[in-house]
């Protein structure tokens, strides 16, 4: 038996059926959002009405799981009422924690709902002890979701210097950016990832096949990738596109389609004091959630028991069938 403390497994859900799947697969908590721009996965057909979230919270609580409401996009002037209403609805439903990115919304929760547990979203981009402690002292934040830019030793140093829990991403989509600050989608489409809650909105994405079984991916008026026959595809985001540059043709100028997979680093994260392990993918299907959550449930339980887990099946669910440990392992991970 290992002396590692078993962390909370935090899993994604984009629909009520996904939430039930995550709970049944072994999630300790599930994070999800309301329909509309108040969360960072504002995709067509995705997310919850207040009634659906209320029923889902009951389902989760009946099975000893928690539900966290992601209200983690940034409201602009004249639109804050929608974000405040979402917070009020989440609290009214009996949500276990509200995940906030905007400092104004953090103030709103702290003042209007002082008993509500508050988490700081990865979108807030708080990576230093000083920044995190500011949120803890001013708004009584209980947990910070760390940006995916820190090594495990750096996470340990943050843990030793802050007065709240740490949640760390362990699997799924990874972007090479300071979270909450990427404006690439905004630059091309006029729609903001951070303020409208959607990166590469589907309304602006086109896939054009050619006669040779190739595929051109467009975002707005711009071709962002040309995939030839037999090549795997990635998400239609600018940061994962290929471009002709001065020194290379058809080149992943920003980063390759790849998924974060920290299964091998789980013991190190647990030793570093990480309280909660987060799986990305509220936009993914129930099949993905079932597979990934089950695999991580087994992996976390195995490591906590001092055993070696079998993690071979996760690679099939990664973007481009490639995985990385990102900045968690090394500051240069290309």
């Amino acid at each position, binding site marked *: 038996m290992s002396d590692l403390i078993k962390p909370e497994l935090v899993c994604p859900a*984009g*629909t*009520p*059926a*996904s939430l*039930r799947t995550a709970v049944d697969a072994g999630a300790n908590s599930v994070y999800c959002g309301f329909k509309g721009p108040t969360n960072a996965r504002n*995709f*067509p*057909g*995705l997310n919850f*009405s207040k009634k659906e979230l209320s029923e889902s919270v009951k389902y989760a609580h009946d099975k000893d799981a928690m539900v966290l409401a992601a209200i983690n996009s940034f409201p602009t002037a004249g639109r804050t009422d929608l974000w405040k209403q979402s917070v009020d609805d989440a609290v009214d439903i009996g949500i276990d924690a509200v995940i906030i990115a905007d400092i104004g919304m953090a103030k709103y929760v702290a003042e209007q709902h002082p008993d509500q547990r508050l988490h700081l979203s990865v979108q807030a981009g708080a990576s230093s002890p000083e920044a995190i402690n500011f949120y803890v002292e001013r708004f009584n934040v209980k947990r910070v979701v760390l940006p995916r830019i820190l090594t495990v030793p750096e996470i340990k140093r943050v843990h030793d210097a802050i007065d709240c829990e740490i949640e760390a991403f362990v699997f799924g989509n990874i972007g090479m950016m300071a979270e909450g600050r990427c404006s690439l989608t905004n630059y091309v*489409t006029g729609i903001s990832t951070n303020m409208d809650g959607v990166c590469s*909105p*589907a*309304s*602006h*994405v*086109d*896939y*054009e*096949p050619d006669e040779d079984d190739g*595929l051109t991916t467009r975002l*707005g*008026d711009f071709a962002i990738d040309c*995939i030839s026959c*037999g*090549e*795997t*595809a*990635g998400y*239609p985001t600018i940061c994962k596109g290929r471009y002709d540059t001065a020194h290379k043709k058809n080149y992943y100028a920003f980063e390759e*389609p790849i998924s974060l997979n920290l299964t091998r680093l789980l013991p190190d994260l647990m030793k570093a004091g990480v309280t909660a392990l987060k799986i990305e993918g509220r*936009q*993914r*299907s*129930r*099949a*993905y959630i079932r*597979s990934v959550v089950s695999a991580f449930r087994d992996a976390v339980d195995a490591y906590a028991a001092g055993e070696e887990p079998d993690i071979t099946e996760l690679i*099939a*669910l990664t*973007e*481009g*069938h490639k995985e990385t440990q990102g900045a968690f392992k090394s500051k240069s991970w290309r």
Partner: protein
Amino acid sequence: MRDKHKRDQPRIYKDSQAGPVSKVMPLFAIQPILRRIVQHVANLHPELFERLDDSCRKHFLIDAKGMPFLLLLRPDPDNLMLVAKSRHEEIPYDVLVSGKFKTLLRMIDSKTDSDALFFNRDITVTGDTEAIVALRNALDDMDATLADDVATAFGPLRGPVRASIDAVTKIVGSRT
């Protein structure tokens, strides 16, 4: 700026390579069965339409490789339509989804992850991406499998119908 008008124009499906089987296929016999199926699924899952929002008025053309015909779906609660279309026809559509029959069925029933299928190029999507994302998410919120729903559309015949679906899935799946 993006030409929104251009995007909203329906595309036209045209398959000059279609085999002779589809030309003689008696599609009129299938149409009432498809009507019954789509109406039954709509009655069982009214929440589908809320998730689809405006995309319910789009025309989804489903090209299951190995099937001698195509399926055209308009999931509009006020004007539901699921019809079989000959591969020799010119068919206006908003979204075209292509893949092996078994792959598409497993995707609809959430037995396999559609993003992973897309990354692996096992399915192809062209046309209105917003509409297909909405449909994917709406279907993914259904707990039941499509095969079960289709079988229950036939009341006391659900057993034999379910067996037929499984048999067809196996036969078409083995051909593709």
